[in-house]
């Protein structure tokens, strides 16, 4: 588990890049251009561009304000983990057996109840502590669904039944499988190096060792500070992701999308696209899925509830803070294929 030493070198050779070379800046430009383009076209067509813009802002701030508490909680939890948990502890807790380890990762959400915004900083921190890749990937994909809060909300919406159990079983299986894919990968091929774009290169520093000998109060302050760095670091992905989701929400005609329909295959594709685009928090998506019950197949509703929490616009952007770009693509495509497959199996081979 020598992630930290490989990161050391990465961090040392990275002087501060000029700002126009930074990912965040490019993102910002891209969003600005996109907004400009969309409104340019819109005003040419003569629709109410400013009203649309206000709608965009209202939805963007809605997602952001809703997600900020959970991102902050995840970041502070990450800071506490850094200061209070030694890498050896992680090594002791994770089972040696690879299968068991990935399975633990998939159900760890019951112990660390974090949603899709909080899970990313926590996973990244655990990787810094030497958590095996497979466990982290399984945790990252499963935790937003496999936790007590989502269990309660899904039960409230659907009651005991195939949706409730299907949601948890399918999520755990898929997270476990994708986790296993990463068993043999090397961390340096997978994980984002701390480059110039990263404000907090805690990787090169073992804060746990540094913080020994501090009073509890100082340790907690240090945790807050480390959590704050995580918050800034992840916050940019959350913000840009929410903006893109809000843009989609403002301009993609949902009515047309939903009218596409009820076929066994089309319905699955439709609701998976919708889950990706909407970027709704996993704790409430069950209530939204309720409104699809009459017009969509069971498999497609299940895929909405399993795929959405794993991958959506804002979470896949946040993945960029943890994984290399190529890996983020895998982490979008693999869940998409497996969730789609699970939904099709349910549609064709069960009578739910």
């Amino acid at each position, binding site marked *: 588990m020598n992630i930290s030493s490989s990161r050391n070198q990465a961090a040392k050779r990275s002087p501060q890049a000029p700002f126009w070379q930074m990912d965040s800046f490019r993102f910002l430009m891209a969003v600005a251009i996109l907004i400009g383009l969309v409104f340019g076209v819109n005003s040419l067509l003569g629709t109410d561009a400013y*009203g649309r813009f206000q*709608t965009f802002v209202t939805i963007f701030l809605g997602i952001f*304000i809703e997600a900020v508490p959970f991102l*902050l909680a995840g970041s*502070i939890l990450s800071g506490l983990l850094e200061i209070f948990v030694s890498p050896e502890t992680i090594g002791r807790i994770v089972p040696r057996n690879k299968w068991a380890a990935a399975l633990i990762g998939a159900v760890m959400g019951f112990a660390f109840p974090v949603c899709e915004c909080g899970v990313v900083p926590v996973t990244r921190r655990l990787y810094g502590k030497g958590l095996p890749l497979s466990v982290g990937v399984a945790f990252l994909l499963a935790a937003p669904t496999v936790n007590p809060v989502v269990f309660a909300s899904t039960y409230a919406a659907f009651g005991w039944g195939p949706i409730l159990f299907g949601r948890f079983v399918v999520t755990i299986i898929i997270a476990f499988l994708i986790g296993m894919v990463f068993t043999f990968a090397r961390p340096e091929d997978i994980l984002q190096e701390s480059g110039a774009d990263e404000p907090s290169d805690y990787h090169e520093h073992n804060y746990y060792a540094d913080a020994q000998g501090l009073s509890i109060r100082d340790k907690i302050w*240090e945790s807050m*500070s480390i959590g704050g760095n995580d*918050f*800034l670091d992840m916050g940019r992905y959350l913000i840009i992701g929410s903006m893109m989701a809000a843009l989609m929400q403002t301009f993609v005609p949902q009515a047309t999308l939903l009218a596409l329909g009820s076929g066994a295959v089309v319905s699955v594709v439709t609701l998976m696209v919708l889950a990706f685009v909407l970027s709704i928090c996993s704790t409430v998506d069950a209530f939204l899925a309720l409104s699809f019950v009459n017009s969509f197949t069971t498999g497609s509703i299940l895929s909405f509830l399993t795929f959405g929490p794993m991958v959506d616009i804002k979470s896949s952007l946040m993945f960029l803070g943890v994984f290399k770009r190529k890996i983020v693509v895998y982490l979008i495509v693999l869940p998409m294929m497996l969730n789609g497959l699970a939904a099709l199996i349910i549609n064709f081979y069960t009578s739910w």
Partner: protein
Amino acid sequence: MTYLNKILKTIPILAVSAFLYSLIMRDMVAMYIHPRFTMLTLITALGLFLVGVSFLRPDRKRLHEHATPWAILLVVALPVVLGWMVPPRPLGASAMENREVNYATLSSNAVSRATTQEFSSGEKTILDWLSQFGTGPAASFNGEEATLVGFVYYDDLFESDTFMVSRFIVSCCTADGSPVGLIVRYEGSDQLPLDQWVEISGTFEAQDFNGTDIPILQVTELKEIEPPRQPYLYP
């Protein structure tokens, strides 16, 4: 790390904290999220404030850190800038153009969810009426009186004496908002601007709308109002 960098990192964090706090103070949280999250928002504002303070504390261990790029700080400050610069407006007519609208009845599941609520506040909302309409034929509601608050929506399908009094349902945040509405008859509907908030009263009567009989409110009184503090309905 220089003290300037610490201050640079602190600014967006404190700005977001202050923004959340000011939303609560201005009673505007409900414009963006379900009001049950107000307390959570307050705690977050406090937590961000503490994080900001923790950046400014003198380093005991001299923990080495790199500077935070400006672009990141700009991105994190973006919600605050947009939130303060763009005059807030609740989801309305322009958000409805790309969404499916429920105007006749709600789907059965949504009904069972909605009817578990008590009509404690006295006035039935659009949502309450819609879920009731699912329980019987349109004509069975003839003569029932209602007073409703919502915004005006119509499109090309609507005749000049008809509009839809609409609200958005929000179960978590504005991203999951879905519109509902009741069709109403009112002479001079076409004089009302889209998005105008109104309080209307009248009685229901089953009439044809786009080929189906649905209960349509015959408006006897219409008052133009400011958008309410809680613009959405919460299931």
